[in-house]
């Protein structure tokens, strides 16, 4: 466990000292600012974070891979993976350490966006339910996207390939509910249920449904599990 901590701590330090992470942070704040103010020009603007959440989850298809592409791809490129895998460290400790680091940086970004919520509460009287629930869903979705990105990073030593693969998976998850229409029966239903959007929308409407929480937690667990297995399989190649 101490080694997982050490891995996480090292990655966190790299996150907070690397330009990539700050560029991602900059884009995140600039775009979320736009999403937040989009509807404020309406004659009767609504005190809500819904447009912010809606826009940001699309953005996460691009930003999560950018945050996670480095995590293991760089280790295999630099050859440090050889050192990591010959140290007495379990594979899951490496994966969990890396994942927690990306989560910490993501949560720091989310914390910055509390600014918008504070503005709303300061100048208006919003319904707090959808904001709390929305944030919960937002954090769950972001965490799931990071797990997807981490899996892509364990599969290759090329950061670009890693980012593109992660984006592909995230896009597929995002549009799965649309694809379900063209498949009939049970298969279509399953594909529809795999879609992120259907599970996220409830949150931003202020509904906390355990089904949705379980959905996101399962996605995280599934992709972390695959990451551990992929890392393990690198030994056999």
């Amino acid at each position, binding site marked *: 466990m*101490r*080694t997982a901590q*050490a*891995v996480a701590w*090292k990655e966190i330090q*790299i996150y907070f*000292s*690397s330009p990539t992470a700050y560029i991602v942070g900059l884009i995140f704040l600039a775009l979320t600012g736009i999403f937040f103010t989009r509807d404020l020009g309406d004659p009767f603007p609504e005190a809500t974070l819904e447009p912010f959440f809606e826009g940001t989850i699309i953005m996460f298809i691009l930003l999560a891979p950018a945050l996670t592409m480095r995590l293991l791809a760089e280790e295999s490129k*630099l*050859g*440090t*993976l*050889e*050192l*990591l*895998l*010959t*140290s*007495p*460290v*379990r594979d899951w400790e490496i994966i969990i350490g890396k994942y927690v680091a990306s989560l910490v940086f993501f949560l720091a970004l989310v914390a910055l966006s509390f600014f918008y919520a504070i503005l709303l509460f300061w100048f208006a009287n919003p319904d707090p339910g959808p904001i709390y629930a929305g944030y919960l869903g937002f954090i769950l979705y972001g965490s799931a996207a990071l797990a997807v990105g981490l899996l892509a990073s364990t599969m290759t030593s090329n950061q670009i390939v890693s980012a593109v693969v992660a984006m592909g998976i995230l896009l597929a998850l995002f549009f799965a509910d649309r694809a379900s229409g063209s498949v009939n029966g049970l298969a279509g239903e399953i594909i529809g249920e795999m879609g992120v959007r259907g599970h996220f929308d409830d949150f931003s409407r202020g509904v906390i449904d355990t089904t949705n929480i379980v959905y996101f937690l399962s996605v995280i667990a599934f992709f972390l599990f695959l990451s551990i297995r992929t890392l393990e399989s690198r*030994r*056999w*190649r």
Partner: protein
Amino acid sequence: MIQADGLTHYYGPYPAIQDVNFGVRKGEILGFLGPNGAGKTTTMRIITGFMPPTRGTVTLDGYDVVEQSLQARRRVGYLPETVPLYTDMSVNGYLKYMGTLRGMSPTFIKARLGEVIDVCRLGDYRKTQIGKLSKGFRQRVGIAQAILHEPQVLVLDEPTIGIDPIQVVETRRLIKDLGSDQTVVLSSHILPEVSMLCDRVLIINEGRIVAEDTPKNLAEGLQGVERLEVEVGGPAAEVLPVLKAIRGVNDVKHVNDDGRHTYTIQAQAGQDLRDVISQEVINHGWSLRGLQMVGMSLEEIFLRLTTHEEL
């Protein structure tokens, strides 16, 4: 300390090593010698638990590197061929991180850090970012991380490749000084290095061990012959049969280099034929222009063992 039995590893359909067996005693320095692509790195990766062999087993201190991987890995310090460093970390930070990964306690790391930095002469560079260090210093950082946790087994893959001669000497001194309770496996394609450092040498070629002995025995005993090089002024057609007729001569090879006739004589072991040969040459009225004993160098043995043509 290390016991490898029947190691075989395939990359796809291609065998990298086949049926490699060896043992290393505690405190011994074993050298792997072989041309590029002979299977040295593959063998080392298997010993360190980076990848499992297709067939065969390796045990470290009694722990199987595949089945009891964690225990085995705790006992190993490893320097891969391309020194794996996080270039954006400082020397201190990197060593501390590696120490933690090896399961060292913070107090143990603190105590060892100073020692290791002294041994590897990194004192002035503790706070330097690794990316800014020269190749030789990076190599030292690589060795520092390998010996930091006082591993029982140290595996060094080409420890002196790509660094300048002065640093090569320093690195060798460092390995020599490691102490007698540490078992070292190193690979190299530099023969003098291996003969200088190692107690025992395994020569590996095309994935198989072709010879195994002490560097001294390999150089001297293996061939069982002494060689002489004689330069004679006289008609080669007459000289050759005379030389061949001398008692104790196994074989004579003649080289005509622009009128300089040189004869390489393979003599039976333990025979000093210099007096007899010079006597014979002078008795026949030829001139003796040169006569010297040529031992077989490790290079020649190496080439003889790893290439199929005669020297």
